[in-house]
């Protein structure tokens, strides 16, 4: 009995010792890489924002001038971040990520940029699980479909035309994939309406820390 207990104690000590050393290793790595990871994430974000709203158009730091909002228009239950670009204090554009929850294979994350006049500066897909070769044409790497949103607004096309062609609208669908573009068009349209209704408040609101 005593022998067994001693054996258990020794094994426990060895396990605990290794667990401790491992925690130290992981903690040290985490500490050493944390800053770089944050920087890389911010850089990636800034680069994405720049593709839609070129830096020449604004003189503030959109990644620092943000709002945390929760609204059905963002398409998700969690808080969305709105980035605001301004020039000489005047509103230039809003950028945010929205979610098209009804994609063919789960939610599609979109980055949208809306100019202060209500026209789209552009839309990009951030992440999706759509079928490769069919639905993934929404990705700018695969086709230029998503760039057809550039310059569009709620009046262009008219309300009834904010649909894919199959549903009587102006936006192309893909051969074999209608659900994906339909979901994207719907999500973009929904956010445009939200932006129109709250534009003044969105630019005026105190930035969230």
């Amino acid at each position, binding site marked *: 009995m005593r022998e067994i207990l001693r*054996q258990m104690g*020794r*094994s426990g000590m*060895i*396990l605990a010792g*290794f*667990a401790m050393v*491992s*925690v130290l*290793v*992981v903690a040290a*790595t*985490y500490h050493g*890489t944390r800053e*770089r*990871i944050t920087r*890389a*994430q911010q850089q*990636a974000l800034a680069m994405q924002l720049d593709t839609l709203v070129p830096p020449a158009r604004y003189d503030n730091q959109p990644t620092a001038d943000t709002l945390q909002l929760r609204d059905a228009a963002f398409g998700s239950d969690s808080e969305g971040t709105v980035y605001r670009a301004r020039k000489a204090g005047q509103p230039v554009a809003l950028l945010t990520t929205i979610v098209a929850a009804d994609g063919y294979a789960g939610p599609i994350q979109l980055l949208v940029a809306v100019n202060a006049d209500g026209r789209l500066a552009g839309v990009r897909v951030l992440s999706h699980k759509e*079928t*490769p*070769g*069919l639905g993934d044409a929404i990705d700018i790497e695969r086709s230029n479909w998503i760039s057809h949103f550039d310059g569009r607004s709620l009046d262009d096309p008219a309300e009834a035309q904010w649909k894919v062609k199959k549903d009587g609208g102006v936006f192309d669908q893909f051969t074999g994939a209608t659900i994906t573009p339909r979901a994207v068009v719907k999500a973009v349209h929904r956010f445009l309406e939200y932006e129109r209704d709250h534009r003044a408040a969105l630019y005026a609101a105190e930035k969230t820390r």
Partner: protein
Amino acid sequence: MSTPSVREILSNGLWHNNTGLVALLGLCPLLATSSSAINGFGLGMATVLVLLLTNTTISAIRQYVQSEVRIPVYIVVIASAVTAVELLIHALLPELHKVLGIFIPLIVTNCCVLGRAEAFASKQRPAIAALDGLATGLGFTLVLTTLGGLRELIGHGTLFANANIMFGEAGRALTLHVLEDYRGFLLAILPPGAFIGLGLLIAGKNLLDARARQRGAAVPVVQATHCAPSALPTP
């Protein structure tokens, strides 16, 4: 367990006991991340790094670990090595991290890592164990990259697309548009393409092995036939 020669370790890891083609371990990441040559290569290299770390560590601590608790200890070592590698990739190659996503942390569950720890590293000197880790990892990378290349070529008509996520902007020059104006072949990119591709690779390896055996057998060794009459060579 006697110490195998360097040659044996390399040939086992890269060919005769290849993780992907013979042992068939780690199929989940193998099938999921082999949609392009670069993705496959990236995950392969991450696995090489993990295997090097874990095999060396486990070999170095083999005298201090009682056999009753060895598996938990191995798991702790493997899990922390994988977490460290994941953080490093996230910091140094953020784009690759984005593409591989969940499959980097999932290296923990790749049976070949624990398998090499238990079957090899726990019985050998650190240098030998490290070499085994390298060989096993490279064997896995070879399969991942070949399968990825095959699927990418058939599916998209390119090779090494998006190489910039691993090698920086200079990597873009690596991309080969093998087939211009190729419309793509969806099946190769989808999961079934991974299974079919892997099946073809395994068949190809068996074919090569069988040829080599035949060639080896045809020349000298015919005297063994008396104990296996059914294996008599037919004229």
